[in-house]
């Protein structure tokens, strides 16, 4: 069973990288751009058949390691 995890900085936390990327895209002529936030993406393959159990395991991984919960949030999606 595969899951994907996106880790991003929390809403109110400064994202220096996103700020610079967004400014550069604007300088390159990209229009109507409001904001860019940069994050991390993980693909996790689990030997597990129960979706809910799998989800819980991935959640635990996120809380313990993948995300620094002091400044980051995470989103878990079940991959097809």
């Amino acid at each position, binding site marked *: 069973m595969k899951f994907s995890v996106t880790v991003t900085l929390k809403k109110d936390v400064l994202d*220096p*990288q996103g700020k*610079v*990327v967004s400014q*550069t895209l604007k*300088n*390159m002529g990209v229009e109507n751009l409001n904001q860019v936030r*940069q994050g991390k993406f993980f693909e996790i393959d689990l030997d597990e058949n129960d979706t809910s159990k799998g989800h819980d395991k991935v959640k635990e991984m996120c809380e313990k390691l993948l995300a620094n919960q002091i400044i980051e949030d995470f989103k878990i999606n079940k991959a097809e």
Partner: protein
Amino acid sequence: MRSSVIVFPGSNCDRDIAVVLEKLQFKNSMVWHKETTLPKSDLIILPGGFSYGDYLRSGAIAAKSNILNEVIKAGKNGCLIIGICNGFQILIECGLLQGALLRNSGLKFVSKDIFVRVQTNKNKFFNKYKNGEVLKLNIAHNEGNFFTNQKHLIELEEKELIPIKYCNEKGSIISESNPNGSLNNIAGILNKNKNILGMMPHPERMADKINSDQKGLPLFLSLMN
């Protein structure tokens, strides 16, 4: 000789390079990245540092700046270009050099004095060194782990496009003396025409006798030949 040092926001070795160039009586200009024209130059230097904070990928954003179009044009017309550290990363991101600089294999920023061996002096940059000469230089980077495809690697080796490799004090090129996991201990590469050099070590940091044995100096002297 006329030189231009390109200054990006976040460059931090621009002054260090300028000091050396001025000492050697280059006619040097500092060129801000927003400029759209280059002063007439025989040599262009992309200095080390953290252009744009190393954000996204090291060198990626600097490679999109105004002045880079001019640098690319000049490079294609045979102008001598050196990219040091972050400058090397920029040369790769803008396509003037091939390959990739990955994160150091130890996953940490590495700053220390290292040794490199001159593999070939048959180019504009290293002609003041002897083949096989061991140089003590300094490195300071997060992403200096050179990687490329097999075909390019063979070309680099066969056409003498790898002027320096990491080695130990005695000049042996062994994995223990590789500070960042770089393929074949590569510390710097040239383009096919040998007018563009990218290197991770900082020659400008080894140019003053108060704090070095000045092994970086001949690189700049070579260019005056």
